[in-house]
Each structure stands twice: as C-alpha cells, then as structure tokens.
C-alpha cells in the first residue's frame, strides 16, 4: 500500500475514464483528440492550454489514441499542440460540462 502524499501535479493518464467523483455541473472539461493532416490520431503530442491572453495554463501529453483533457473554467481558451509531425492551434469557448475539441497538427 502506498501512503497518501501531497497530491501531485503530473497529468493523469489522458485515456482514463473521467473520475466518478467529478461533478460535471461544476467542472469545465475541455477534451478531444490531436490529429495529423491525414486525420490520424497523434499520440505523444504535447497539448498546451493557453488562456484568453495567450498565457500558458497547463500542458498534457496525448494518449495512444491521441486524447487530451483539461479541467478549466468557463471562458475563451486556445489549445496548442506540439508534435514531431508539426504544430497546430484551436480556439475554444468553453462552458461547464464536457467541451469536445479537436486539434490538427501539420
């Protein structure tokens, strides 16, 4: 058994189901898939969540199926993906609940 320690800051597994304890009436989840120009899912891409001023807020690495997920707040955000196949941006206006977004890198 591992004793509880201070909750860490590393990103959880991006393919894992949303935690059952998550209250979707309160959380603003921004989630989706990074795809290449050829519409293939891109695993191992670095997805950065930038706020409305372009300031970095968080970063995760996509799962084997190219998935990413952020827990943000309602408002305007930009998703920027970096990968060996190139980079790409998508703007999103998020509300409470699940916001699905895809980012294409080229």
């Amino acid at each position: 058994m591992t004793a509880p320690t201070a909750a860490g800051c590393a990103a959880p597994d991006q393919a894992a189901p949303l935690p059952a304890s998550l209250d979707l009436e309160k959380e603003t989840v921004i989630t989706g898939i990074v795809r290449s120009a050829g519409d293939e899912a891109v695993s191992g891409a670095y997805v950065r969540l930038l706020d409305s001023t372009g300031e970095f807020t968080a970063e995760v690495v996509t799962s084997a199926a190219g998935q990413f997920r952020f827990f943000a707040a309602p408002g305007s955000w930009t998703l920027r993906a970096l990968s060996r196949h190139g980079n790409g941006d998508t703007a999103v206006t998020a509300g409470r609940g699940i916001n699905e977004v895809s980012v294409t890198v080229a």
Partner: protein
Amino acid sequence: MSRDTALVSAEWAEKNLDAPGVVFVEVDEDTSAYDTGHIAGAIKIDWKTDLQDQVRRDFVNKTQFEALLSERGISNDDTVILYGGNNNWFAAYAYWYFKLYGHRDVKLLDGGRKKWELDARPLVTDTVTRPATQYVAQEPDTSIRAFRDEVVAAIGTKNLVDVRSPDEFAGRLLAPAHLPQEQAQRAGHIPTAISVPWSKAANEDGTFRSDDELRRIYGDAGLDDGKDTIAYCRIGERSSHTWFVLQELLGHRNVKNYDGSWTEYGSLVGVPVALGDEPGEA
C-alpha cells in the same frame, strides 16, 4: 552559478551518453513515461515514492537520500544530468534536492523529455542497473529551503514569487488546469507576492529562455534584486523550476524554494490571503 554550469543541451547529452562519470536520471511524478522509453543509460527516480517521506509530509531525510542514491548507483563524484516530463518540473525539484544535500556536480537537461521527444532523439526501453555505491550526503542546506513561518514573516518585506498560473494566483482555480479542481484549502495567494508563472521562463519546447529575456521578465514583474526571494507554487515543484532560473541561471543569491507552497499556506489557520490579480497589501 550560470547557464554554463547548471544546464546541458540535448546535443551535448546525446554526445555524452556513455561518458564516464556522467549519470542520466529521469525524474517524474509518474514514471510510466520512463518505462515506455528513456534516454539510453538513464536511471529513474520517482518523485512521489523515492523523494517523499511516505508517512510524514516532508521529503526524505539525509539517511534516506543516501540510501536512495547508493542503491541507484550514483556516487559523490558523478556528474548527474537530470531530466523529466512536465517541462522539467520534477527534474528541477530533484536538482534543488541534490543541491540541498550537497551534491557537487548536477545539471539539468535543457528542455527535458519534451525537447528530446520533439527532436525525435532516441529513447530505449532497456532495463538499466548500476552497481551500488556508498553515497554520503551533506547536512541539508536550508539556505535554499523556506518554511512556513519564514514565509509569513516575508510578507511585505522579501520578494515573494508566486509561480502558479494567473488563475491560481487570483483564486479562480485551485490547481493546474489538467487536474480536477476539488480541493479543501482556500484559494488565492500570499499577500504582496508577485505573479510570475513558471511558464514565462520557458519556451514552448521546454527549454529555458535566454538570460536577457529572463532578467527582463523578473525585472518587469517587480522582483527587487536587493532583497531575499522566496518562490512558491502549489506543491513546490514548479517553484523549483523558478528557483533554478533565479539562483542557478541568473546567479541571484538568497533565493529559497517554499516546498510547502500553497497546499500548506492555503490550509493554515489565521494567515492573510489575498484574492484577485494584484499582489495585495501586507
């Protein structure tokens, strides 16, 4: 300290993978990334299970640190090159830790795992074992570690640098946005702290910005070179990144990392807390 002594490039690292006396160490909170591929010859250190005491809320003591490094095969004379994911947060934390326990030669790999991967440099899955050593650590150097009473006393007198994201600083979020937000403690920041998110110090590929850019960023934010500085974040690893920038790259003196950070301060009874985007009054 300076960039030349504290940092190595990916190019340098790739040329020195087999150099005698050089040990590469991947440090992460979750070492599953290491298991799927790591720099050839690199050993791993798990931030949570190797570097934190598993009972008390503290990091491992001198004896535990000696046992860890001895078991992993790191000797006092080795040049230790640290790297990791999350833009080197946990590697920077480990760097601070190696310094705290007096390791002579330790450096960060600029850009960490991200830069290495984006450059498509090779990663391997080989099991790495090194012969055990008899590592001897120094007494902890508390000149680089801040505790809570010192932080409370620093309000309005020392530089307090909050390196979390602007929304965490203002109290709109309690944790980084890739984590669920449920938390027990209060939101906000330590009054009089300036907000300089750790990410300002890094390029998007995870490498550090140039010294000139870094000096301008902290200067513009109001960091007073003539005063002592305490950096904090939520659990002390992002602030290790900023501690590294200020002390090891820019050569500031008297910079401390407050590893208790917001998870401690924001749970203390009776201390002042400021909300909103401004530093607030002492």
